[in-house]
């Protein structure tokens, strides 16, 4: 039995909830709240747009920018005029109830209802996982048509108050389109650059980094709206411009914060918008006129289909990857209307537009139809037509190398051909970016970091964190492969591999992350200890261990600085993991460890740094380290006891050390350990955390 959520998209359910809530309020006798336009435009819409803009897949967007612009601008204009004109004709023929609605009013109505709504598109398209091209086309169109909508709306609203509309007015109106859209983009770019520049100096106060992003973006939106420029385009431009520089400057935690806050706010906004739509439907004054509403609906659909067909025919002449009829169908079908149309209609003033209620009713009907009918049926249609779905590509370093290689190759070929194409200009922009812009906007060393290295660091960081976080579950992350450096280059010594030099801040960050997780799991481990610790007979052995550990920790201090030595000895988590993975049997009981109790370290699989517990001094197997005194310790060495109790995850079949030369797992990258405090606490097994 299919669940409700697989048939009905979330937006529909939310509207139904809104209807119920509104009905409830009305039933009680109170007046239900209506979605006021300023609340919508000032508070509910910006988070969604910022979320969309900040995480916009820039590559696909720019590749298809021409197509998107044509759909957004020409398509919306066509829709507006076609619909407005036809509705005027309907009004003239529609009898006394409609006769008084003039051409301008109808054109205004057309411009309100014709814009594809980003909120509705996002809500529905997110769930159907359609391929990236179609997603970016419909979504990009819904974002960029805001400029057209704003211009048309204000234009017709103004004109409706005029006695006469001259040609000059029309021409000025046409020009104002460019002002609105380009002005909006300019405002966004300026604020984006300011944010990027600000983030360059926040290295000492990391906590407020997310604040700058949100604040400046919102200011971009408000500034644009203040001057009647396109706020949506400003917000998108700001997000797109600031993102690469801000991400290079801010800490990992800030990045996570920004991501989660944006997702959270946009979710909340979206939910509220749809619920409010439902409530407003119940609460509002309606004026239902069959002719008007039905013909609006019908012509909306016709206009959309015709527009898409004609424009695609035109666009396909210039596109290399043509849009198939299936694509065209999805694009036409995905033209959903939403709350923006409603709010714009609500903004209409009764004085000039007495038929506002009728307009609102028609708008709501169209919204309901598109969201319910089209929203619900698009998923089965996508399956039926076998439209290509989104491919789950995992971001890998290989892919990045290949993509960059291909980019350079195509640029080269274009240069050889003598054709200044897409790649050529992109390459020029990149070079300009690297030479001038990055130096201004990115702090410190990272301004010179090439993209490949930055990507590599990001991936290493991600893997390190995943590893640390999953260590508590006791499962092997499925991504771990057993391939190690030995498999591809048998001649190398185990520790020959070095990591690109990490900056101090990154190291510090990684250290901090590992340390906090270490602490957390140590606390967890402590509880296990109390339950499973076998007592007395082994106390002495424990004390020996403790003493040795204390000595080891002193040596650790010496080792502390090895992380700041030019990364030669630095071992990346991937490497360690790879080596661990290739040698899951790398733990074997030491000579005197038979006396030690077998502790069930259930969650601490050998891969996690949490299973740092004992520190032994055998320096074997670490040939790459700087020559130090004999008892030199290579940092935290993991020795995991064989899990004895039956309940444990026997993830690794313990065996005797058949691995060559006593391999053990090195955690050189992890922090030097907790501050060495005296052992008197008697926490037997775990070194006391900070």
């Amino acid at each position, binding site marked *: 039995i299919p669940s409700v959520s697989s048939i009905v998209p979330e937006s529909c359910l939310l509207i139904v909830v809104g209807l119920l809530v509104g009905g409830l309020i009305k039933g009680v006798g109170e007046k239900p709240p209506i979605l006021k336009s300023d609340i919508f435009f000032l508070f509910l819409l910006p988070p969604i747009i910022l979320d969309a803009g900040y995480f916009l897949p820039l590559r696909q967007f720019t590749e298809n920018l021409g197509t998107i612009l044509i759909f957004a601008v020409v398509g919306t204009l066509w829709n507006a005029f076609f619909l407005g004109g036809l509705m005027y004709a309907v009004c003239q023929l529609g009898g006394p109830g409609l006769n008084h609605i003039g051409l301008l009013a109808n054109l205004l109505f057309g411009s309100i209802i014709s814009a594809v709504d980003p909120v509705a598109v996002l809500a529905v398209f997110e769930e159907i996982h359609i391929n990236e091209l179609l997603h970016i086309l419909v979504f990009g169109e819904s974002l960029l048509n805001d400029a057209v909508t704003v211009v048309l709306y204000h234009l017709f609203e103004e004109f409706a108050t005029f006695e006469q509309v001259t040609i000059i007015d029309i021409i000025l109106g046409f020009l104002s389109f460019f002002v609105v859209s380009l002005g909006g983009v300019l405002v966004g770019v300026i604020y984006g650059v300011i944010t990027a520049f600000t983030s360059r100096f926040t290295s000492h106060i990391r906590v407020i980094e997310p604040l700058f992003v949100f604040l400046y973006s919102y200011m971009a939106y408000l500034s644009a709206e203040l001057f009647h420029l396109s706020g949506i385009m400003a917000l998108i431009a700001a997000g797109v411009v600031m993102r690469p520089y801000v991400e290079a400057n801010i800490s990992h935690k800030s990045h996570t914060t920004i991501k989660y806050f944006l997702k959270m706010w946009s979710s909340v906004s979206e939910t509220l918008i749809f619920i409010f739509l439902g409530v407003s439907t119940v609460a509002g004054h309606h004026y239902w006129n069959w002719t008007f509403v039905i013909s609006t609906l019908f012509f909306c659909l016709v206009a959309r289909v015709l527009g898409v067909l004609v424009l695609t025919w035109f666009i396909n002449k210039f596109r*290399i*990857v*043509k849009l*198939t009829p299936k694509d065209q169908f999805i694009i036409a079908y995905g033209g959903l209307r939403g709350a923006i149309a409603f709010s714009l209609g609500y903004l209409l003033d009764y004085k000039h537009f007495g038929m506002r209620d009728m307009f609102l009713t028609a708008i709501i009907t169209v919204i309901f139809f598109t969201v319910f009918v089209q929203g619900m049926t698009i998923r089965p249609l996508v399956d039926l037509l076998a439209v290509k779905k989104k*491919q*789950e*590509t995992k971001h*890998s*370093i*290989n*892919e990045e*190398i*290949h993509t*960059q*290689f*291909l980019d*350079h*190759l*195509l*640029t*080269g*070929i*274009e*240069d*050889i*051909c*003598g*054709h*200044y*194409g897409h*790649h*050529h200009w992109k*390459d020029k922009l990149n*070079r300009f970016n690297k030479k001038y812009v990055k130096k201004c906007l990115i702090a410190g060393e990272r301004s*010179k970091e*090439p993209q*490949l*290295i930055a990507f*590599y660091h990001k991936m290493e960081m991600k893997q390190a964190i995943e590893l640390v976080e999953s260590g508590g579950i006791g499962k092997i992350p499925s991504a771990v*492969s*057993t*391939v*190690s*450096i*030995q*498999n*591809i*280059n*048998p001649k190398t010594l185990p520790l020959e*591999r*070095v*990591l*690109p*030099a990490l900056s101090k801040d990154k190291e510090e960050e990684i250290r901090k992350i590992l340390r906090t997780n270490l602490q957390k799991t140590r606390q967890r481990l402590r509880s296990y200890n109390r339950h499973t610790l076998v007592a007395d007979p082994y106390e002495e052995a424990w004390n020996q261990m403790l003493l040795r550990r204390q000595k080891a920790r002193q040596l650790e201090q010496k080792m502390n600085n090895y992380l700041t030595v030019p*990364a*030669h000895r630095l071992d990346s988590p991937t490497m360690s993991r*790879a080596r661990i993975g*290739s*040698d899951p049997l790398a733990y074997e009981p030491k000579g005197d460890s038979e006396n030690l109790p077998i502790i069930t370290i259930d969650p601490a699989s050998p891969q996690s740094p949490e299973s740092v517990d004992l520190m032994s001094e055998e320096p074997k197997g670490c040939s790459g380290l700087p020559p130090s005194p004999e008892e030199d310790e290579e940092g935290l060495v993991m020795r995991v006891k064989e899990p004895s109790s039956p309940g444990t995850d026997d993830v690794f079949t313990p065996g005797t050390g058949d*691995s060559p030369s006593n391999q053990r797992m090195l955690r050189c990258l992890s922090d030097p350990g907790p501050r060495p405090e005296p052992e008197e606490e008697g926490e037997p097994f775990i070194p006391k955390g900070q």
Partner: protein
Amino acid sequence: QGPLGSAPVTSLLSLAVTSEQIEHLHRRFKQLSQDQLTIRKENFDSIPDLEFNPIRGKIVHAFFDKRNLRQESDGLADEINFEDFLTIMSYFRPIEMNMDEEQLDRFRKEKLKFLFHMYDSDHDGKITLQEYRNVVEELLSGNPHLEKESARSIADGAMMEAASICVGQMGPDQVYEGITFEDFLKMWQGIDIETKMHVRFLNVDTIAHCY
């Protein structure tokens, strides 16, 4: 003599490049070769924009690679004529609407084979670790302040990932020789190369100048 010189017309038509494009390319060829019938490696130095390209060596090399020129022999040619030039260019043509599955698959394999030859510089049919390192070093060659080790470790990481994709789990004694063409195909499975690897040479007007 016409633009095609003495080359048989039929072989060129099979490349599905329009005659307009052939005209344009021929004009470009004449520019590059300074009105000679063949181009040598040195002629590519006259293109100013190519200097900034980090992999220009490999690109130029690809033009002279006999495997790309569909010749039976191996190794490098010293000079290429217009027909060869067109052959190389044909690797970058876009897909057509009316291609069926099999054609599409062959198309894709051709393009990937071209890329593979670029990576595999010693022509042994495998991309070894050293060759891969070489590729990454070249990609990063625009950044003189970087240490060599960075490029090496990235290449190593990528190679390990490739090994784990292509072979899966490996014991500590197994050695992964290098990426064969089948493995290469596997790595590119997620990426639509047929939609990415193409160049427009439709515009007749924009002709970049040479020195």
